[in-house]
């Protein structure tokens, strides 16, 4: 198979565009120019596979901190989540199966987040669903918000 078009994520693709504006008179021209650059540069540089960016979201509630990372199309065995030295490292490899004319390609993703000391590193859990990895990081007991009643004498 010949690769006809690949569109890298950019600010433009990740930012939401409302329906009315996405069909501005310039949008067709911009897509054509993007495509022109993409094919021209990909022919020069070959098919390079730089470590791609993983968008992450951080949430918390009173017991846990949650990290959600968008990793579509990766097998569970190829995802590695590690807590090392106060950092949470998420690494994943997506292998595209070998097709005619192309060897098997591997795209690697990498993201490293710094954790504060409130995390119980041994109770970290992770789940992968629909292409999104959710890592649950329980907070230490001392770090949970607690109500302290003070008796006033």
């Amino acid at each position, binding site marked *: 198979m010949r690769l*006809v078009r690949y569109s890298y994520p950019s600010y433009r693709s990740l930012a939401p565009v*409302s329906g009315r504006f996405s069909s501005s008179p310039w949008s067709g021209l911009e897509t054509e120019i993007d495509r022109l650059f993409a094919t021209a540069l990909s022919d020069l540089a070959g098919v390079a596979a730089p470590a791609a960016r993983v968008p*992450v979201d951080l949430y918390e*509630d009173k017991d846990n901190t949650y990290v*959600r990372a968008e990793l579509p*199309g990766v097998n569970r065995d190829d995802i590695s989540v590690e807590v090392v030295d106060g950092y949470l490292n998420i690494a994943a490899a997506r292998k595209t199966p070998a097709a005619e004319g192309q060897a098997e390609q591997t795209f690697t993703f990498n993201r490293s987040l710094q954790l504060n000391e409130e995390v119980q590193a041994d109770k970290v859990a992770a789940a992968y669903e*629909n*292409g999104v990895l959710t890592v649950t990081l329980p907070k230490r007991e001392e770090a949970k918000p607690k109500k302290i009643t003070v008796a006033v004498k």
Partner: protein
Amino acid sequence: MSLLQNLIPALNRTTANTESAPANELGATVKPVFEIKQTAEAFGVTVYLPGVAKDGLEITAEDGQIRIVGRRAWQRPTGWTALYRESTDAAYELVLTHDNAIDADKIAAELRDGVLRVSLAKHEAAKPRKIAVS
């Protein structure tokens, strides 16, 4: 004028016809990352839609366009506060214009782990053909 519109179907698809109804219900949309490869028989489209499950996915083929809409399945539980967001909650929308190069009856699609693979068989008229010279 009408002859030109008959020759070039894209001129009939002005923004008024294509964007009026669908744009309102989806609100803001994001264009997903995608790849297109082709063989002599078909186009293969791989669209990366993290967070979209089968019920949130909708593929329509009409009037020379393939439209893929993916709505994310995950709702943030109440009690979770967002500290830092890099992704959006907007739906994914991808429109591919093919001008009848694709046989719309033979579209096959598979969604797994947030990756949608669509195989679009080329219309008989669009396949490369040898023409015998008498």
